[in-house]
């Protein structure tokens, strides 16, 4: 299913990576932040909406990274280049990520930034919407968000253009170590 997901997600313009451990994930992100020139300047911030990913990890490198903050406000997110969050599920047949985004910071980092990095447990890839809906429910999740590729439009002359109101890049990192379905 990973391969199917990858094909579909790449097909709609997402970037898909896979790492073994959480530490590998952190290293990947650190390298990414560096490459994108994240710094403590408006327009160059990175914001990370907390989830369970960082529990029990060596996050020293992250805490020390200038421009990256875990305190997500609308002002900060709106001036951030990169937003990082965890997404709970990946849906293979459409290449979509899904998460309960009832907590507002989860939406701010994935909606206002230019690049959204999404961390996903490799074990949580489901084949389709039907199987997804057995695992997530509006009874318990008040804002179920599907994200499929970057923000896009074809409203001017039907030319596909990326990055309208949301991120222009979606970088997905599957983490094998994060096994097991949550929720």
């Amino acid at each position: 299913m990973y391969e199917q997901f990858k094909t579909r997600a790449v097909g709609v313009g997402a970037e898909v990576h896979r790492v073994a451990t959480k530490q590998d994930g952190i290293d990947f992100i650190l390298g990414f932040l560096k490459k994108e020139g994240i710094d403590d300047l408006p327009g160059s911030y990175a914001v990370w909406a907390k989830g369970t990913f960082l529990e029990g990890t060596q996050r020293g490198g992250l805490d020390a990274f200038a421009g990256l903050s875990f305190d997500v406000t609308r002002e900060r997110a709106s001036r951030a280049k990169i937003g990082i969050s965890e997404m709970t599920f990946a849906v293979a047949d459409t290449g979509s990520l899904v998460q309960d985004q009832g907590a507002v910071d989860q939406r701010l980092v994935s909606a206002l930034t230019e690049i959204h990095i999404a961390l996903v447990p490799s074990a949580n890839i489901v084949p389709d919407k039907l199987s997804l809906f057995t695992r997530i429910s509006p009874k318990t999740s008040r804002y179920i968000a599907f994200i499929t590729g970057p923000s896009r439009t074809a409203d001017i002359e039907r030319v596909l253009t990326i990055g309208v109101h949301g991120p222009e890049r979606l970088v997905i990192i599957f983490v094998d170590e994060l096994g097991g379905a949550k929720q």
Partner: protein
Amino acid sequence: MKSEFKASINKALNDANLTGALGKFSEAYKVNRAKAYEGIDFEALRSRVAEAKSSAACHLDEVADTFKKNAEALGAKVYRTKDPQEVKEYILKLAKENGVKSVVKSKSMATEEIHLNKTLLENGISVAETDLGEWIIQLAGQTPSHMVMPAIHMTKEEVSDIFSKEVDERLSTDIPRLVKVARNELRPKFLAADMGISGANIAVAETGSIVLVTNEGNARLVTTLPRIHVALIGVEKLVEKFESVVPILDALPRSATAQLLTSYVSIISGPNPNDDGTLKEMHIILMDNRRTEMAQDPKFKQALQCIRCGSCLNVCPIFRLVGGHVFGSIYTGGIGTILTAWFDELKKSEDIQGLCIQCGNCTQVCPGKLDIPEMIMEIRRRLVLEKGQPLVQKAIFSVVNNRKLFHGMLRAASIAGKPFTSGKFIRHLPLFLSDLTDGRSLPAIADRPFRDIFPEIRQPKQKEKAVFYAGCLIDFAYPEMGVALVKLLNKAGIEVVFPQEQTCCGAPALYNGAYEVAARNAVDNIKVLLKEEAKYVVSACPTCTVALAHEFAKTLDSVGETGWIGKAKELAAKTVDLATLVKRLVDEGRLSFKEGAVLGKITYHDSCHLKRSLNVFEEPRELLQKAGYQMEEMFECDMCCGMGGSYSMKLPEISAPILQRKLHNIKETGAPMVAMDCPGCVLQIRGGFDQEGSAVRVKHTAELLAEQLKD
């Protein structure tokens, strides 16, 4: 037809940008849509969508109540009203109470339907549409021309001009740059807005959830940043069960934009926290505006199954020529005609209903299983009931209803037409009738109609008999098609019977909303055609076949002549189109073609009624190939030729470019001959080639097959 309406059509037709953009789009759409649906059983999927929607439409009241109860239990406020005015008052009051100065909106047709922006602006509240297309339209002071792509009629140059004015800086026409400008201009508006207004694509009663489907990400911001969220939802968006979200989400993006899924889908169930820690104020307005009445009307209930994907526009031969603005309303195209007739008033659809050529393309792709052409026919019928028929039309149909007079006039026309005919065509007609020969020559009325020729055909007596229903065109313009039919059936051992009292099938009256006239035609024909003991009633005109096999019973039912319905069904059961019958006879070994004939390339044009009402398209192709032709498929082989009965006379300016496209596609195949199974299409296409002096030959399949029968 009003002259302003004709003027708006001509303006659209002469807008090369518009017709170019729409034409290219509809061609690409067809391919992309097919790709998006790969591996999916579309029929099964659309049945699930239609069932979910229709089941909610059956008891809208109850479903709306359940929604209200459940959404309120989650903390949302739900307001239900029939009256658009009350919607506006509610939102205005809410805005005033909360000191709202600015509003951001994500796309919502319902708000456009009630002209909400105007009300807000008049009350000193600023409104920004945030969907890129809607924002362009808002800045340009226009209405959307397409429900999914509101600004499809505009070029990047126009958009650049509009944006340049807005930001007071000369911008280039680079599209990514223009999109960035929109992002940068709208971002502060999002952050500052006090109220976000959205629509919803689905509202789920059992969970009180609303579902928003977008690509740009604006709906996420509209529902996240402002402290108040108002969702204005037409009650047709309701479904009962959460599980119904799945088929709708499977179909909507595929049909709307040929995507497997849009970039964003949000399922919101009750208010969520704002970023300052307070709970959002969430208001959901369920708006009726005659939707309940519509749900109670047996002919229009199906309209509530619409999921507003816009695919009916994308495949419509008329829409792609004239675009959305000629429809003069928020909702455009065939579906727009229906919604306008209800949400505004029936009278408003008077002109635009005539734009539908009844080709049936939309019924093939509609994920909600709406029969748009059928509903448009019903609108025509009601308009005629309300206003009576136009005088000229009435005069014509009173003749058609009197067979002797009608046939007498057709004979007279064969003589009266003489001054204008050259060879087999009328090339020019005088004065106001000249539109009819603009871009297409009309066939000369035959010297001798089929009805006069038939008694002279010597047929062997056979046990198996078929009644031949010729229809006006074959009888009076193309008797040779009838002769070919007799030859084919005789060869298979079937004797043909031709009742002289048969008359017009009523299609012209029916398609103009004159149901009473059509019902008279139906009764006259039923009597005559059932009188003979015969195994089949066969026709070589798909429009006539559809009339006999489907429309008679429906028409009689519509006008309340239920006594005849049983007989109509009996006739329907015996009715068969020629291609299907011949194919059967060939398969049974009763008919065979000369062996080893090599007849060269041919291309085939699918007639609307044969392909989409009768589902016959393989049979004629197989037969022609068996006879020795090499099939060379044309682009858009099943696209309408623009004839549409009297359509080509009422709206020749639209019919002509559709015909041009068809002629072009035929010529592109390089085949010297095109076959088809409808005398109406032969009239249109042969006339088109004659007018442009092209050598491509146009034939009814029956004639080609009859030539190749084994001796």
